[in-house]
């Protein structure tokens, strides 16, 4: 659901009211703009997405596929995600006895090595695409990662 509003005061109430309407009328989307009076409603008559969810619920009990951004993706102003360009195993350090390349709070430069993704015995060094601070580490050391799987959340500077 998208809800664009300008005035901050009543926005939460409106969101709830809109959410109720959405459910009540089985809509798939409501868009509302106050100043220019812009209203947009959507109701999906198909159900494809719903089915796919159903299939997943029945056939993929635990290992639901994570979202797969195709590249480093900026979602909010200054937040970037570093994603895996390979299928492989994620390592935060160059060896079992070595310190991790980066940690939460580490300030990184574009081109700086963040981690290793091992694929077919090859150690692929993954570099940061931006300057910034690591705010979250999204993959687990020694665990498998898919193509496009987010590894680090970086606040750009």
């Amino acid at each position, binding site marked *: 659901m998208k809800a664009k509003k300008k005035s901050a005061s009543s926005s939460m109430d409106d969101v709830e009211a809109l959410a109720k309407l959405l459910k009540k009328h089985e809509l798939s989307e409501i868009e509302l703009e106050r100043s220019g009076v812009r209203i947009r409603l959507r109701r999906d008559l*198909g159900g*494809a997405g719903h089915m*796919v969810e159903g299939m997943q619920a029945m*056939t993929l009990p635990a290992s639901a596929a994570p979202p797969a951004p195709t590249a480093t993706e900026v979602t909010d102003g200054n937040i970037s995600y570093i994603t895996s360009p*390979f*299928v492989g195993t994620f390592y935060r350090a160059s060896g079992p006895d070595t310190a991790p390349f980066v940690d939460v709070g580490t300030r990184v430069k574009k081109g700086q090595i963040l981690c290793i993704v091992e694929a*077919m015995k090859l150690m692929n060094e993954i570099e940061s695409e931006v300057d910034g601070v690591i705010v979250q580490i999204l993959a687990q050391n020694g665990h498998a990662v898919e*193509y*496009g799987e987010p590894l680090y959340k970086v606040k750009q500077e």
Partner: protein
Amino acid sequence: MFKKVLIANRGEIALRVIRACRELGIASVAVHSVADTNALHTRFADESVCIGPASAAQSYLHIPAIISAAEITGADAIHPGYGFLSENADFAETCEKCGIAFIGPTAKLMRLMGGKISARAAMTAAGIPILPGTGLLETDQQAISAAHEIGFPIIIKASAGGGGRGMKIVRDADKLIGQLETARAEALAGFGSAAVYLERYLEAPRHIEVQIVADTHGNCAAVGERECSIQRRHQKLLEEAPSIALSDIQRDELRTLCERAIAQVGYTNVGTLEFLLDEKGRFYFMEMNTRIQVEHTVTEMVTGLDLVREQINLAAGHRLSMTTDGGRFRPRGYAIECRINAEDPETFAPSPGRITALNLPGGFGVRVDTHVYEGYVVPPHYDSLLAKLVVHAEDRPAAIRRMARALGEFVIEGIKTNLEFHRQLVRHPDFVSGKLDTHFMERFQFVKP
């Protein structure tokens, strides 16, 4: 038996393999590109791994990503499906090196039987006839004596040509030298090389192929032929089993021939020997497919044999589950498959997009293999096959009526499909009477409804 099979493919064949795994109690791993995140094979397997962007070269054809996906999921075998890496011997070799079973023949056998020239040599050595022809011709005298040995009509083919271009049919010995000169001139002008060769010309050949299954213990069986003469630019559109062109005697002869040849080269797993059948009932080996084929379904319907299950069992070292019983093996009834594609039925241009409405045919004798659902978006990156509609009935006329009925209740909306093409095809007098050859589609006229 394998514990977990990774399917290095997408679409209906990926689902086909997942289904076989389910029934065998084997866990399945789907790999998928970013474009196939919502695909049924992704959703339907026990596990799924995103291996790359939409481009097939960077996903379904990208060997390191697939091997890596097998390693991180602990898959002990890979099923390649058809297309993509299924006939890539390097891929089979990489699997072998990484300790992952490749569900197919060995890399060595793939190289031998997958290459056209080496396969023809191996089959000739095993006593299987190939289409008589020459190498590149040096002199006119060479051409004349070769032509008389081959017998008329012959076809002159430009070495650098292809797809029907640069060809001359010669029906009469008197015309040979003149046509040869014209062909050389055209070849030089068209392809920059005057090199030509001769082959026997078949006026109305049928494409007949034989399904092979072979274990690693020295047993093999040719479990029946398929008639695949209805093709457009070497793309099969409709397949049948058995072929009405064969008598039971011919069927048994062909089977014996194939089994002997397969045993001689020591082939394993499933495969298909493709032949041309001329008007006089003579077979000529063309090539071998060292993988499961799209149209394996029609053989399943008339034999009751689950070929993908068999394929997995054979790769795991099991013995063949059946034999052709000293020639007493007979198909039961008749099966037809129509390939339903996302394409314009007139221009054959692919038609990707969202399927807004879907009704699958059903009922007695109807099988549907499809990965599409209502709301599915057919991506533009891959082949256009949407569904295989397969029917089974007691004889060919009943199978044709059943196919016409099933096509009538098949609805796909939102994209263009060749459903109407198939509806017209199965009503065509030549199709109904079984007058089929590989030129059929040149005579067939689609009528816009």
